[in-house]
């Protein structure tokens, strides 16, 4: 009997510890949100969204940074999703199980954990200097693609690996070729998992500041980028710039910028989750 009581006590304690930890995490998030919201909500108006940066806080806005981020994320997605998924398909479905393939996989794993400033240095050396792309959207999005690629590759590989062997065997047993099996069954089955990785990777690159500063993204951009060769600024860069100023009003602007960034991230994630659910639900 005593034994049973102790076990039940242990069980309840564990549940409460878990609840406590979860509550602590969520409250940190809410405190942050509350703090930022309180400081920034007053600055968040149509004028803020529709103005270029200015040295007068009342006139300053986030227009160029917002559109810069939208451009960046669009271009980054265009480069990194096809490349990343194709790499994962090759490594998982085609590459021989040899030592050099293992070495590549381990390296990709390491790359995913590399500090983003190093990607900035790499981007500066290759895209900005060597390829002469200067401080354009090309440089920015290519650098962010480097950052997103390992995450996409690893998540996609995991999703592909999780497709049951029976499905592949069933398809092969009907005389299908490898590409037919991959495109007809393996990729569709793995798509939800791949989407999750893509969302994670893109959200992360959207919030990156360091590599963009490294490659020379400007913080005063009083125009909207019109082609990928134009200079740009991005939300985190603009926020960083405002937050670094001594005047209190600019801190309010930074908070408002954070709210815009959060909203953009949430929209991106929500739409991706929505698409994923749609795909996951059975398609005839």
């Amino acid at each position, binding site marked *: 009997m005593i034994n049973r009581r102790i076990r039940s006590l242990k069980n309840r304690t564990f549940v409460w510890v878990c609840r406590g930890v979860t509550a602590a995490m969520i409250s940190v998030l809410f405190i942050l949100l509350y703090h930022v919201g309180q400081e920034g909500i007053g600055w968040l108006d149509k004028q803020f969204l529709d103005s270029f940066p200015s040295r007068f806080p009342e006139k300053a806005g986030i227009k160029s940074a917002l559109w810069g981020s939208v451009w960046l994320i669009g271009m980054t997605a265009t480069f990194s999703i096809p490349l990343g998924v194709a790499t994962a398909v090759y490594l998982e479905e085609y590459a021989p199980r040899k030592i050099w393939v293992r070495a590549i996989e381990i390296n990709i794993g390491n790359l995913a954990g590399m500090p983003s400033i190093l990607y900035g240095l790499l981007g500066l050396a290759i895209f900005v200097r060597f390829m002469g792309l200067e401080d354009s959207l090309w440089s920015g999005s290519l650098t962010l693609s480097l950052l997103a690629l390992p995450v996409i590759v690893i998540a996609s590989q995991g999703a592909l690996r999780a497709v049951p062997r029976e*499905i592949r065997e*069933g398809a092969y047993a009907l*005389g299908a070729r490898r590409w037919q099996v991959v495109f007809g069954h393996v990729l569709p089955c793995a798509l939800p998992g791949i989407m999750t990785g893509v969302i994670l990777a893109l959200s992360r690159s959207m919030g990156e500041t360091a590599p963009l500063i490294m490659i020379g993204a400007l913080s005063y951009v009083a125009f909207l980028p019109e082609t990928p060769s134009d200079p740009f600024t991005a939300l985190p860069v603009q926020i960083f710039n405002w937050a670094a100023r001594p005047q209190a009003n600019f801190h309010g602007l930074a908070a408002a910028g954070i709210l815009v960034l959060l909203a953009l991230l949430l929209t991106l994630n929500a739409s991706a989750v929505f698409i994923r659910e749609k795909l996951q639900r059975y398609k005839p």
Partner: protein
Amino acid sequence: MTGELMEHPVILETKDLSVSYGDHQVVKKVNLNILANQVTAVIGPSGCGKSTMLRVFNRMNDFVPDARIEGKVLFEKNDLYDDKIDPGFIRQQIGMVFQRPNPFHKSIYNNVIWGPKVNGHKKDLRELAEQALQKAALWDEVKDRLHESALNLSGGQQQRLCIARAIAMNPKIILMDEPCSALDPRATARIEDLIQEFRSRYTIVIVTHNMQQAARVSDNTAFLYEGNLVEYGATKKIFTQPDQKKTEDYITGRFG
């Protein structure tokens, strides 16, 4: 070999077939003639190499990295492991039904027509699907929900769908790897009925753990033990008066 066996032409034959995984030899110098339009059962205790042998027959063992095959497998006199042979082409003619039902994550209809479609069959797919489902005795149960997910079917229905999927390719041989081991007795009975109906149209090779099943559905039975073909002959004879002591012991349940 008895006279009865000789009345049908040989469609598939193995010559000194050995299969090894790494250093471990699983099938040892097996010589076996599979006769056309007959049901051949392969029985034997777990690990005796019967599933391995079955997978050699449509080159599904190609996907096992360290599998090595020696000897010959002739399908209609052609060497299955000849370099010039396209394994995809082999699998179109030698279909397979697996141990656990493995319908694709698609609709019932798309499950059936996927095979013909990827192999270049474009016309009358709808009719083809109906015929295959009819033959697999599934049509009446699914005709009103062809475009629903195959995953909503019961286990027995899923297995019949997998059979329909194999039939839709109009194969010459259907290999069945313990097709009923994941099914309840009623679903098993329906699959066995199907096998009975198929014997005139297809050649069937069925691997089974269940000796009653082998006795019920097959014309010929091969008994495999530790990779060796111990005895092969008409099912009636194997089950009533086997030549080998080993076969008798296994069939009467003394081991295995």
